[in-house]
């Protein structure tokens, strides 16, 4: 994947699984972003949203996170539930040595498991 110059350089990739608790997951994600930003000294995030909802309707769940943000550069990329594609994405991110973290709705156990198998820290909401 060709990431966007500037916006997706030297950033943190957050895999956000929006399930039944979409809004809660989004709120938790922002708290995680703040923590990671302080730990890693980064102020850019790419949020990879994994959701059953079509694009861009899933943004309703993400709205609170985006409305809360005044500090970070954020890009939001949509992924449906194609686990093969998600797996390939994760492999690519790991190969590029990107910082990756997961925040996943507790009803999306399979997604959480996939991330954990890839060695990615996951927070379950």
């Amino acid at each position, binding site marked *: 994947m060709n990431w966007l110059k500037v*916006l997706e350089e030297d950033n943190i990739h957050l895999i956000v699984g929006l399930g039944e608790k979409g809004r809660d997951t989004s709120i938790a994600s922002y708290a995680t972003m703040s923590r990671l930003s302080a730990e890693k000294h980064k102020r850019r995030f790419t949020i990879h949203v994994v959701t059953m909802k079509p694009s861009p309707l899933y943004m309703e769940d993400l709205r609170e996170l985006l409305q809360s943000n005044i500090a970070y*550069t954020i890009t939001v990329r949509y992924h449906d539930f194609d686990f093969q594609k998600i797996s390939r994405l994760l492999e690519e991110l790991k190969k590029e040595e990107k910082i990756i973290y997961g925040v996943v709705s507790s009803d999306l156990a399979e997604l959480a498991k996939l991330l954990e198998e890839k060695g990615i820290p996951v927070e379950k909401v």
Partner: protein
Amino acid sequence: MMDGFEIVLSTDRTMMSNHHGKEFLGFMATGPAIGVPEKLWEYIAAPKVKVDSLGRPREAPYGMRKVEAKLLEAGYKAAIIDPDHLHKHLKTMKILMIGHHDYFAYGPPSSEWWSITGKEPLNRVSFKKFMNSPAVRKAKEKGVKIIAGGPAAWQWLWELELWQKWGVDTVIDGEVERVIVDLVEKALNDEPLPDYIYVGPQDSPSIEEIPVIKAPSVNGLVEIMRGCPRGCKFCSVTLRPLRFMPLEKIREEIRVNLRGGIKGVILHSEDVLLYGADGVKPRPDPLLKLHEMVVKEIGEKGDLAWSHASLAAIKYAEDNYKLVSRLMNEYILNDHRKFLGVEVGIETLSVRLAKIIMPAKAAPYPAEQWPDIVEDAFKIMHENRIIPAATLILGLPEEKPEDVGVTAEMLDRLRPYRSLIVPMFFVPMGALKKNKWFIRDKLTPEHIEVMMKTLEHSVYWAEDIINKFYLKEPYLLPVRLGLKLFLAYVKRKVKKLRPQLEALLRK
């Protein structure tokens, strides 16, 4: 004959208009047609602009001109195209970029007029018409990528179904000069794009990365700085780093406008008097040099306006340096330029609320002096033929009824000063953007009192302004008449509603 453009920038008529050369008339596009036929309202607020054979407008929104300039400098075939001429570029268009100040009328004051009247404002109606137009629909059918940006980009988060329906590929919020070329390149290469982008303050462009516009801006607007140091919590602009444009850059852009036939200048800043300032203290030297340069470029007959100024800076500049009267008398006013228009922010006249929401609005004076600063600044402006359009915000978080009551009382002190005062309903933006909206259902008697007082104040002074200063050119007679018709309607309506409103207030 030139080929068509692969990147087309466009927007709806309420934005692609010079409002008869009178920038403030554009505010009528934030309301629904009231008291006058809709066609007349549209004509007053947003007449068409002149275009060339390719549909390129003679003048276009400034922000879009910046993006256009950046793309042209990168070697792309890009142009701003009038909405009525998009069809000319369907064969070559690969990307359609749209910008707006207020796509869906969620910004102030549109959201307020909508809330009060129950009718969709003109800007929203017009934008929806644009997106549903045959040319835009056809473009999408052909696979054109649509990228939406501008200061109202955040509004797409509240219109997800329309976002989906219209097939907007990416929404980008923030200053884009550092990033837009790469985004466009990836779009042209059919690479996957983010749905949404927020450009944080650390990715704001430097002065060197901000291009000079290549074609004229609406009514000659040119920016003299970006950002604001006051940190008011309701404001999104204060979140951006402060940068002053060098005089050479400003002059270049004025010359682009003059060469394109735009004879006037609107100096754009969140606070013109903070150009080259020492923190929040205006300094004479940069401002005198700026105005000397501007007036030399536009000559005696060029129009001049400031977009915004702060009341504290007006007072400080005049009290310490007689700077306001110097600028007006030595540079601005002449036989042609009889007044200077500017927007200012009162927001609240409650010291308690000011300290919470905008503690540095009064700086370098203490916040306790805010009501006196407001009155002093209004007096200075009145004496110097500066006519402000002032905003108040109703429904701020932490607002109490007594704050609004104090504001209503203090408004009487401003009655002697020529001005328009417009109350706006709070819209969550800036540091307060996760707060709740203020809507009509939440109006209290104190709010109604403020709205009545500001309406009476503004109608009184609007008649004076139109009679003595505004729209004096003969070709603007239909616009003057239309406005007078509207004012007459407002006065009749207020007279009719007054007994009910007064009864409500007495309760």
